[in-house]
């Protein structure tokens, strides 16, 4: 049956009309991802009226193509101007922008585009292989397990903390605190809102990221009066640099592969959030690296890890959305609406009776990633020229783009105040060396941490951690953080022994 579905999916996907429509979706996706003012979420929502009346076989791959590649476009602005095009691109700017400052924008973009496109394609292979076990696997995960998965993500705070672990933890704690603004999810009680209706919702991540990362950088750009690429002797970043970035993905294939696996797994788990995957992938890459101290200074592994996870999570998220109708992210929620709009009702039968359509969508993600990779690689050498533009011209453009992006994220004018607030915070965090990535990880996972904790406690009782699957995840967390120091310890011990013996 799976083979039949695969053959049907393959024959559907080579339809020239569908390919043309998907290419259009890819172009729109890259464009909306590239512009922080629009974002993939808004782009997908804006396209909803366009699919009314279309056949599901045309409409759904078109929307998926648009959505799946918006992160590829979003990485470009993160790397070039420190503004993530979409929320999940926030992890890319930690190393992407410093690379640009070092004059390696082309290389960073090549690595980002290649890793996100290849990650997207590889995750489709994972999805096809794991279709039979995804549903039983997801059914094993209760709130307790979700809580420990979030804990696993939060434990990377220690990795993202930077040179001072105490300051890193403080920044992470502050991020957690800011994530609690708004309605408490299980009681509906508003917190830290000061009577403001605007603050009832959680603070918008795009506005927070633009404020925290882009605004201090803009102030710096304006006062420094030098181009973004600090290294004057560096080239603009032509084809050679971009190609170098592509080759980097194969040089650091382990980082890429682990990032893709992390992205796929987090994508499959409903309710963990789209922003979680790239941060966990980044933290994991840093933790496993032989030179973790170089992360954050502009190294290519710091771009490959989050970008490979970014697109990889989509194939996983699609499977869960199809099987359970539970969207893993805000965009998946819109896509879920699109399914109903064209008369498709998600359910496990999508992975049994409707396999043809499901495979068409999955293969559509792979094809869209190929298309996006080609388009973005062709565009990258031109985009990197922005790094050599004089700040007098660049400053107003980036400022307007950033502020419009913050406004468009939820169409709330007060998001501009959020940008300014976090801009000031970002400025002081830079000055006093508090880790902004640690803050962001705390902010992204804080709400989920609290949510799943209360659910686990209320649904499974105070001994919720005693479930076998929970114990396995706890063991995995311990192993992740114990193996490396243990290995280092034994290595040191084995080096010392011959000396003492001598």
């Amino acid at each position: 049956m799976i083979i039949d579905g695969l053959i049907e999916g393959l024959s559907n996907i080579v339809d020239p009309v569908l390919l043309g429509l998907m290419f259009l979706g890819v172009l729109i996706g890259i464009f909306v991802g590239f512009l922080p003012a629009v974002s993939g979420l808004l782009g997908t929502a804006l396209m909803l009226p366009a699919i009314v009346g279309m056949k599901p076989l045309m409409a759904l791959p078109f929307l998926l193509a648009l959505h799946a590649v918006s992160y590829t476009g979003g990485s470009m602005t993160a790397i070039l101007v420190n503004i993530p095009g979409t929320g999940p691109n926030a992890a890319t700017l930690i190393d992407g922008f410093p690379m640009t400052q070092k004059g390696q924008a082309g290389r960073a973009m090549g690595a980002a585009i290649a890793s996100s496109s290849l990650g997207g394609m590889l995750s489709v292979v994972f999805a096809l292989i794991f279709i039979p076990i995804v549903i039983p696997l997801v059914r094993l995960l209760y709130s307790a397990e979700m809580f420990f998965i979030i804990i696993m993500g939060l434990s990377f705070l220690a990795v993202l903390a930077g040179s001072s672990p105490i300051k890193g933890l403080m920044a992470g704690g502050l991020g957690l605190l800011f994530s609690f603004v708004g309605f408490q999810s299980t009681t509906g009680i508003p917190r830290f809102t000061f009577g403001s209706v605007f603050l009832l919702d959680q603070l918008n991540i795009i506005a927070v990221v633009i404020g925290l990362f882009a605004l201090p950088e803009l102030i710096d750009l304006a006062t420094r009066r030098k181009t973004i690429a600090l290294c004057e002797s560096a080239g603009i970043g032509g084809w050679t640099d971009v190609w170098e970035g592509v080759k980097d993905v194969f040089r650091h294939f382990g980082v890429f592969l682990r990032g893709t696996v992390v992205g796929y797994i987090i994508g499959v788990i409903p309710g963990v959030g789209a922003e979680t995957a790239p941060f966990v992938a980044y933290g994991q890459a840093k933790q496993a690296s032989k030179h973790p101290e170089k992360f954050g200074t502009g190294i290519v592994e710091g771009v490959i890890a989050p970008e490979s996870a970014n697109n990889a999570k989509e194939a996983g998220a699609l499977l869960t959305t199809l099987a359970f109708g539970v969207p893993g992210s805000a965009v998946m929620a819109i896509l879920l609406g699109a399914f109903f709009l064209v008369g498709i009702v998600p359910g496990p039968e999508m992975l049994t009776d409707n396999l043809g359509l499901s495979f068409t969508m999955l293969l559509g993600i792979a094809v869209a990633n190929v298309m996006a990779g080609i388009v973005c690689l062709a565009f990258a050498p031109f985009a990197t020229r922005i790094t050599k533009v004089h700040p007098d011209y660049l400053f107003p453009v980036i400022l307007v783009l950033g502020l419009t992006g913050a406004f468009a994220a939820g169409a709330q004018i007060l998001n501009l105040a959020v940008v300014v607030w976090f801009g000031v915070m970002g400025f002081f965090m830079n000055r006093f060396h508090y880790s902004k990535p640690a803050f962001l990880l705390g902010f992204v996972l804080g709400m989920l941490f609290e949510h799943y904790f209360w659910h686990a406690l209320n649904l499974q009782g105070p001994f919720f951690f005693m479930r076998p699957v929970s114990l396995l995840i706890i063991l995995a967390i311990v192993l992740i953080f114990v193996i490396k120091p243990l290995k280092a310890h034994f290595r040191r011990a084995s080096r010392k022994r011959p000396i003492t013996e001598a």
Partner: protein
Amino acid sequence: MKNDRSVKSIRALVMFTALSALCVFAGSMAHADMAEFYKGKRITLIISSRSGSSVDLVGRTVAPMLAKALDATVILKNMAAAGGMEGLNYVATTAKPDGLTIGMRDSASCYLNQLMKAPGAQWDIATLKYIANIQPSPMVLYVTPGGPIKTIEDLRKAKGLKFSSISPRGWMSSVITGTMELLGLDGKMVSGFKGSSASALAVSKGEAHASAVEGYTLQRYERKGQARPLLTTGAERDPAYPNLPAITEIVNAPKDSVALFMAGLPSGKLMFMPPGTADDKVAYLADVTWKIINGDEFKTEFMKRVGTNVWKKNVTGAEFAKLAKEMVARKTLGKEMLAILQKHRS
């Protein structure tokens, strides 16, 4: 004498017919005026819910049909911030009452948020103008398929039940806690699940024992093997589940029982206009919308998009306005509902 009486009756009949004709004529003239007013205009349909939600889907179904009927442009705008209250707040407090702004939201959320004084709720359901409430439906209680609870009696006997729900003060929570109160169930409601699908997934996995949802959505969950329907919480049996008893058949609660009110709350997709909108505009739009939502085209599209084979009665704007006023008149209703919610939630 007899002749006089018959002459009088004939005269009265003529007068009545003439008056009726005059009313119909005046009405049609007013309708003609209104038709002229809306021709070529731009109407904004504010969806007080996110893109892709069920309210949004119904809004996207109605909008083009409304545009065609009015020969106008209908623009959809999602305003879902503040837990979905943004759009309703906007229509109630900021939008001009010029007849060109229509709001849309789940009807139950409109009055529950106000009655229970939800933080951020700025509207008054007694002052809004109503066009129609599309396909209001009560909820159906369901349990884990293959679990130990197979009958209502099993449910009543069970200890430490856990019900999954979405918003802590929303419609689902109100229905669940009302039902728990009426049936005297032992357990608690755990809210905060992100959507009815997530709540259903928790029940199907056995993480929670039970939950509630509209009949047509439950049909989908049942097809997926995620739910075992047990009881219609409304006053009457649900056409989607004609064999399931309604809660009124099981418990003997007084008609003004707050718990019965909470459990039996139906909710539809409510279309409304800003307070102060001219009555003739509201009446005209209500009339046009009524024809649309009872037409075959809408019926077919609605059933296809929500994935059901069941069609229920729509409610007119005037009927809903009456209901809204009655609810606001029950001064202690909100407090009593909150007390029941507090009692049964975790």
